[in-house]
């Protein structure tokens, strides 16, 4: 019976290329990490919150944010997972980890890869540091990963 069903299945694959207009803030952030290995955030003129990733409007005050500040390359892990199962759309071969990281000097969190795939060696509250790619490609992955310190 399963053979019969198998014959009636048509298998196909669609490629969906896309462009995404990232905007001036993302452009500046990506350029700074690639060119100068600096992680930049923006500060709200009203509540003083520093946003990394940067955005134009403060989430709580609705103020336009124009003051750029450099934040630390080190940060604290607020949460993590270790991906152990593979799908065709992953940035790396599993197992690999990623976490929510609060960079020193930032008030919002940042998601990125962590180069440790043993859940026993990962801990909420652990300290990590950004490792930059030698040849930047103007991607968020110009921060190649965060390493434990």
């Amino acid at each position, binding site marked *: 019976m399963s053979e019969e069903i198998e014959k009636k299945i048509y298998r196909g694959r*669609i490629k969906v290329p*896309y462009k*995404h207009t*990232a905007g001036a803030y*993302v452009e500046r952030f*990506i350029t700074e990490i690639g060119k100068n290995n600096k992680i930049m955030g923006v500060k709200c003129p009203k509540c003083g919150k520093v946003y990394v*990733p940067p*955005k134009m409007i403060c*989430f709580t005050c609705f103020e336009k944010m124009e003051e750029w500040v450099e934040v630390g390359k080190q940060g604290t892990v*607020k*949460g*993590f*997972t*270790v*991906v*152990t*199962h593979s*799908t*065709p*759309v992953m*940035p790396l071969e599993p197992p690999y*980890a*990623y*976490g*929510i990281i609060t960079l020193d000097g930032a008030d*919002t*969190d*940042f*998601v*990125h*890869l962590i180069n440790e795939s043993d*859940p026993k060696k990962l801990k*909420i509250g652990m300290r990590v540091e950004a490792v930059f790619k030698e040849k930047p490609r103007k*991607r*968020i*992955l110009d921060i190649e990963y965060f390493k434990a310190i």
Partner: protein
Amino acid sequence: MDHFEGINFSEMWCGIESAPGYLKPVVKVATGGTTGSSLAICGYYNVASGIYKNILVIGWEKLNEGGATTGIITAFDPVWERPSLAGALGPLALMAGMYSAKYGITPEQAAKVTVKNRSNAANNPFAHLQMPNITIDYVMSSQMISYPLRLHDVCPQSEGACAIIYANEEETKKITDNPAWVKSVATSHYYTFGTDDKMYDLPTATMASKKVYKKAGIKDPIRDLDVAEIYEPTSWSELAWTEALGFAEPGQGGKLLDEGITQMSGELPVNPSGGVLSTNPIGATALVRVAEAAIQVMGRGEKRQIPDVETALAMGFGGSLWTELLILGKEKLR
């Protein structure tokens, strides 16, 4: 949903032409995981507003034919989130890890949710996974998928459909003398980047539940609700979100389960149908919650029926950490 199944106009593919919708207005609603509850709420608005007398609401999904993860990834910000956070499992794994770290919830307590819900599913002939003899050990020794989530901590990918008829007061009399009435509905969402949320709780569930309880006159959900069908994509999320819905204090979701309150025989049974952990055709999943709540109110649950249900809660959860809630009851809201 189109982007999960990799096709466009999925309503045409699913045969609207031959369905009762032929030559009638068709409106497609697709909001990710909340699709079913959005459908349910739109159905209610369409009839309660007086625009239509009665309508058929259908939710479905054929996950076997598409790539749900690929579809879900398109909902995430291309720069910040697609390379890492994207998909359904990753954020849910982060949420589980942060929730357990904050409140000391154990993997055993999470596994107990799966055991409860899949045991309930054995009473539901429409449930996808039939695992009547499932044990805590079996769940805890299943394959690790995305730490700390194991295979049986997460919902399956199902194929299925669900339909609900909405009718106004006059039309309802022609259909049944035992309807379930919609008492209140609420939608709540906020989102810019995933990490703007604290992740260990679900604030939208708290926000929506406050609205929906107020409208339906519910002061103490444990006392005033008789059953709840909540949207638990993982075992951990049922623990965390029963807290967010006000069934327990923050951090007490595990205790709520340990004390048996959410079991079939408890004060407020949660997911007698087996929940999302047992059946997950995404576009239908949240509509199934509403249908199951209606079945409980109408007393048509057979082996999964909770005795004397007057008031039931149904929940939808979706992509941008949305929550949608409906309260159904035996009595009309005055």
